[in-house]
C-alpha cells in the first residue's frame, strides 16, 4: 500500500507544484483584500482534483493490472486512494487554517472555517472515490459536476424557501459539530466499504 501512495505522490508532483502556486496566489490575494476566505474554495477543491488526476493516470497506464500482480491486493488499491486523498485534504485544511489566521487572526474562526471546507472535501471524496472505482476517471467527471452542483443548489433552495432556519441551527455549534463529525465518519466508512465491494468484483 505504501508503494501505491508513493506512486501517487510522485505522479502528482507536477500538479502539486502548479496547485501550490495557485494556492499561494489566492492566499496573497486574500491577504491583500483582507478577505480571509478568498483561498478557502481552492484548498477545498485542489485535493479532490489531485485525486481525480491520479485515478486518470492509473486508468491510462493500467497500473492496477500490474499492482494486482505484485504484493498489493484489491483492498490496498482502495485504501491507498483514501489515504492519499485524506493526506491531501488534511494539508488543504492546514493551509486554509493558516491562510485565514493570517488575515483575521481569529483562531476559532480559522479552525471552524478550515474544518468546514475540509469536511466538504471529504464529502466529495466519499462520493467521487466509489464512482471513479466503478466508472473510471473520465466517465466520473460528469458525476463530479453533479456532486458539486446538486448539494449547493439544494442548500440554497431550502435556505431561500425558508423551510429551515439556518441561523437558528448555527447557534448550536457544539451539537452541530458533533453531528457533522459523526455523519462524516459514517459517510467515509460507508464510502470505503462500497469502494472495496466495487473493486473486489472488477476485472482489470
Amino acid at each position, binding site marked *: 500500500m505504501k508503494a501505491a501512495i*508513493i506512486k501517487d505522490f510522485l505522479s502528482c508532483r507536477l500538479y502539486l507544484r502548479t496547485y501550490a502556486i495557485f494556492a499561494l496566489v489566492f492566499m496573497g490575494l486574500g491577504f491583500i483584500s483582507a478577505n480571509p476566505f478568498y483561498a478557502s474554495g481552492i484548498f477545498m477543491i485542489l485535493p479532490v482534483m489531485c485525486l481525480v488526476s491520479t485515478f486518470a493516470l492509473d486508468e491510462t497506464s493500467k*497500473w492496477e493490472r*500490474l499492482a494486482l500482480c505484485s504484493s498489493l491486493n484489491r483492498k490496498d488499491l482502495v485504501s491507498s486512494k483514501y489515504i492519499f486523498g485524506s493526506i491531501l485534504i488534511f494539508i488543504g485544511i492546514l493551509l486554509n487554517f493558516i491562510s485565514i489566521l493570517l488575515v483575521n487572526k481569529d483562531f476559532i474562526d480559522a479552525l471552524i472555517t478550515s474544518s468546514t471546507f475540509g469536511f466538504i472535501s471529504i464529502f466529495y471524496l466519499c462520493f467521487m472515490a466509489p464512482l471513479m472505482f466503478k466508472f473510471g476517471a473520465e466517465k466520473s467527471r460528469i458525476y463530479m459536476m453533479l456532486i458539486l452542483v446538486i448539494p449547493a443548489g439544494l442548500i440554497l433552495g431550502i435556505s431561500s424557501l425558508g423551510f429551515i432556519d439556518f441561523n437558528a441551527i448555527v447557534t448550536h455549534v457544539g451539537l452541530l459539530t458533533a453531528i457533522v463529525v459523526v455523519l462524516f465518519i459514517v459517510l467515509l466508512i460507508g464510502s470505503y466499504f462500497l469502494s472495496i465491494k466495487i473493486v473486489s468484483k472488477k*476485472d*482489470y
Partner: protein
Amino acid sequence: MLVCENVRKEFTGFTLDNISINIPEGSIMGLIGENGAGKSTLISCILGSMIKTSGTVKIFNKNSETLTRLEKEDIGVVLSDFAFNGLLNCKDINTIMKAMYTKWDETYYMNFCNEHNLTMNKKIKDFSKGMQMKLSIIVALAHHPKLLILDEATSGLDPVARDELLDIFFDFVKEGDHSILISSHILSDLEKICDTITFISKGKVKFSETKDDLEYKYCIIKCDETVFSTIDKKDMIGVRKNPYGIEVCMLRKACPEGMKSDNASMEDIMVFASKGVNL
C-alpha cells in the same frame, strides 16, 4: 510451479473455455494464438487481475488466491502495456518498487538501466516503446522472482535487444526452481527458448506440446478430396483449401502411405490449427 485446471472466464461474446496448463519447475512455456484468442485473458486470470468464472490456479503448489504477500513477490510480471504513467522516471520507479518488494535489488536495477541507456531522470513518456519494454522487464527481474510471466514482452524490441533478453531468460531458468510463461507473436523467439508450446485459439487450447514433439510429430501434405476423405479428423491439426488442392497439417504417423509430406514449422502448425479441420 504453475498449474491451471479448467480455468474458465465468460464474457459476452467470448469464453475462455476450461484451460488447463502445467508448467513444471525449470521450464519455459510459450503461449501462442491469434489476436483475441485469450492469451492475455488467461494470464490475467492466472495473476488475479481478472476474476475467473471457475477453475483453479495453483502457483508454488498453493491456490493463487491464498498466496501471501511474500509469496506473491516471487512472481515477476511483464505486461504488454507499460504500467507506470509517463510522468514518472526510472528513479521514481526504483523508489516505488523498493516500497513494494522486500527483495528489490536496487544495484541490479541501476546497473541494468545504465547498461541499456535508460536515463534515470528521463520521463517514461519520452522513452521509445522498446525502452519502456526493457524497463518493464528489469522491473520484473529486479526483485528476483521464481516465476516470470511475460505478456508480449519482446514485441517492440530490436533483434539485438530481443536476443539479449532471451539470454537473460535462459539464465533465469538455469536456476532449477525458476520457470517462465511467455506469450508472444514472435514465434522465432519461442522456438529458441521454450520447452513447451501451448496454442490457444478462440478461447480453447488446441494443443500443448513439447517443442521437439511439434518439430517431428506433425507434417503437411497436399492432397485431393478423395485422399482427404480417407484421413481421420482426429489425426488432423487443420486444413486449408486452395485452387490446387487441399493442404492438411496432420500427425506424421497417420500420413497416408506413399504421400509426400513436408515438415511443419511452428508457424504452419499455428496457422493450420486456427483454421480447423473442416473444409
